């Protein structure tokens, strides 16, 4: 099995222009009385071929960030997206729905959380995969599109693709369905794949297969992957860099090796302390309390302060900025004081 080769992260400036750069992204959801800030001040950039992890507990805004990148929130009455999303030198937030449609599936693909419900039950899987190259006019005929679908099914490891393409989703196991969903994402030959917890619904052994597959496909196609997960094991093994998200904000950002060796934000530290390590028997330390619900996120100060052992007066008043070296950044008053 091929495993992640930890790449040295060069300073920001000498790198080629980013594939994706998100700046000050805010996503607000409309409640009955007011707009609730679900994602705040999220900024990051991704290079071609990079696997970036977005880590956090359920409900912290990971999936919403991903949907905002695809333009699937906002542009309706339910939500509002502010900030800048630059993708391949285009500002996605300025694009019309029609222009966005040309990007979805073709340039930014999405691999969803639950393979069991992500495939349309009433159409053969081959047709569902072929829909992507057909919709985005990568093929001139439907037959060609079907051929592309079968090639991708083969590449993601589905045996006998020409025959299986005619089967319906219910004839596939969970792992096979996730392979199908991935081949659906890849068949548009995108530059960025957003994989939203692609393995949460699968068995552990299948999880490893799917993540290996994504990893290999990254190597073959050079596409970048934004991997949303709450599993730090996945982050350690398959990702290049990671962002830790809490209550809609990014609190720490670093290359994976650095993050695991030197976690700085108390939330990251707590998160790591609450994961069991095979072979080491030590008491797990769950993080006290719960992540705040969307409507309980404090409007000022650090949202983690109520669960934080290091909370101080400053935490009540202002949210700290994300600061540090070009490589490792953290948003915590404790860290600022030390530095």
């Amino acid at each position, binding site marked *: 099995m091929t495993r992640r080769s930890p790449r040295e992260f060069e300073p920001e400036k000498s790198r080629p222009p980013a594939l994706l750069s998100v700046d000050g992204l805010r996503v607000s959801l409309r409640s009955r009385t007011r707009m609730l800030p679900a994602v705040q001040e999220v900024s990051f950039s991704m290079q071609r071929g990079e696997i970036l992890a977005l880590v956090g507990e359920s409900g912290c805004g990971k999936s919403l960030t991903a949907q905002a990148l695809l333009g*699937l929130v906002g542009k309706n009455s339910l939500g509002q997206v502010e900030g800048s999303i630059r993708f391949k030198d285009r500002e996605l937030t300025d694009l019309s729905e029609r222009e966005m449609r040309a990007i979805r599936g073709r340039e930014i693909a*999405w691999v969803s959380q639950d393979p069991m419900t*992500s495939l*349309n039950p009433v159409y053969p899987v081959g047709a569902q995969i072929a829909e992507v190259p057909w919709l985005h006019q990568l093929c001139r005929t439907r037959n060609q599109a079907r051929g592309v679908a079968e090639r991708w099914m083969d590449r993601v490891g589905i045996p006998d693709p020409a025959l299986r393409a005619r089967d319906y989703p219910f004839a596939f196991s969970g792992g096979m369905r996730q392979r199908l969903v991935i081949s659906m994402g890849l068949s548009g030959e995108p530059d960025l794949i957003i994989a939203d917890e692609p393995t949460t619904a699968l068995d552990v052994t299948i999880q490893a297969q799917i993540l290996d597959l994504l990893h290999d496909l990254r190597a073959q196609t050079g596409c970048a992957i934004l991997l949303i997960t709450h599993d730090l094991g996945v982050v350690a093994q398959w990702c290049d860099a990671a962002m830790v998200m809490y209550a809609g904000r990014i609190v720490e950002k670093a290359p994976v090796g650095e993050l695991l060796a030197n976690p700085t934000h108390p939330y990251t530290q707590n998160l790591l302390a609450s994961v069991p390590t095979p072979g080491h028997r030590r008491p797990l330390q769950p993080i006290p309390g719960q992540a705040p619900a969307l409507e309980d996120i404090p409007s000022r100060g650090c949202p983690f302060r109520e669960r934080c052992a290091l909370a101080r007066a400053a935490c009540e008043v202002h949210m700290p900025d994300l600061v540090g070296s070009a490589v490792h950044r953290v948003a915590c008053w404790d860290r600022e004081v030390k530095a």
Partner: protein
Amino acid sequence: MIFYIARRLLLAIPVLFGISLVAFALVRLVPGDTATVMLGMQYTEARGEQIRAEMGLDQPVPVQYAIWLSRALSGDLGQSGFTGQPVTRALRERLPVTLQLASSAVLFALVMALPLGMMAAVNRGRWPDHLAMTVGVAGLSVPNFWLGILLILLFARTLGWAPSGGFIHLFEDPVGNLRTMILPAFALGLAVAAVLIRTMRASMLDVLGQEYLRMARAKGCGPLRLYGVHAFRNALVPVLTVLGIQVGYLLGGSVVIESVFGLPGIGLLALEAIRNRDYVLLQGVIVFVGTAFLLINLTVDLLYAWVNPQIRYG
């Protein structure tokens, strides 16, 4: 697939047998018989007995049933006790009217309900939704005979756009046929449409919340493809089930509508048979309608397998 159809057809046989048995017993509970109705004021015990003997009505009921059944199995449904016309011919003459009435009612209901229900779900809580739900409630609350009478008053008497009743055969005069059919089809189909609108709306709302629809959007599907291709076929599954049940209602409703509009269909034939205590004819009509109902349900189930591949080869 072939085996499935064959099995369903075989299963239909005991059902039809049961239907005919119940029908045979029930009509004999109605007071009066063919002889009393036929003779009317001239009824005497002796003449009544004579007619009964001619028609075999003096035999014990189980014997009558056995005789009827043995003939029916060879395709002979007997002769009308009243007119002497073979029952099969009466059915053949009346069938096209009912067939056309019921199918245009279903067509009208589908054409109206599917887009309305879909629009209602997509624009949930906005005006298309309110419009569809209003039609849904109104269509269910208005009795079809009353609606039929109102339609006749407005479109036939006042505006003169359509005849108030009667039937012109489709092949004789297609335009005239359409004019005679449009009001009854509307009156019959509206209640079905109402039920289908609500079903379509509910199942569409369910489908719209599904993950595969979000996936389709993420693939770059536009609204037309999203709703028309990805959602529509999935939403159709419960609608078809309800439609199958509603067709049964249509067969009953056509009795009422045919008499309101004076359409010489199977429903009117059944009504005449009951009025005349025409046992043989009524028996024939009931078995025929039962068969039709079973076949329609089989068709619906086959359509069901088509929209939902998971139950194929069931």
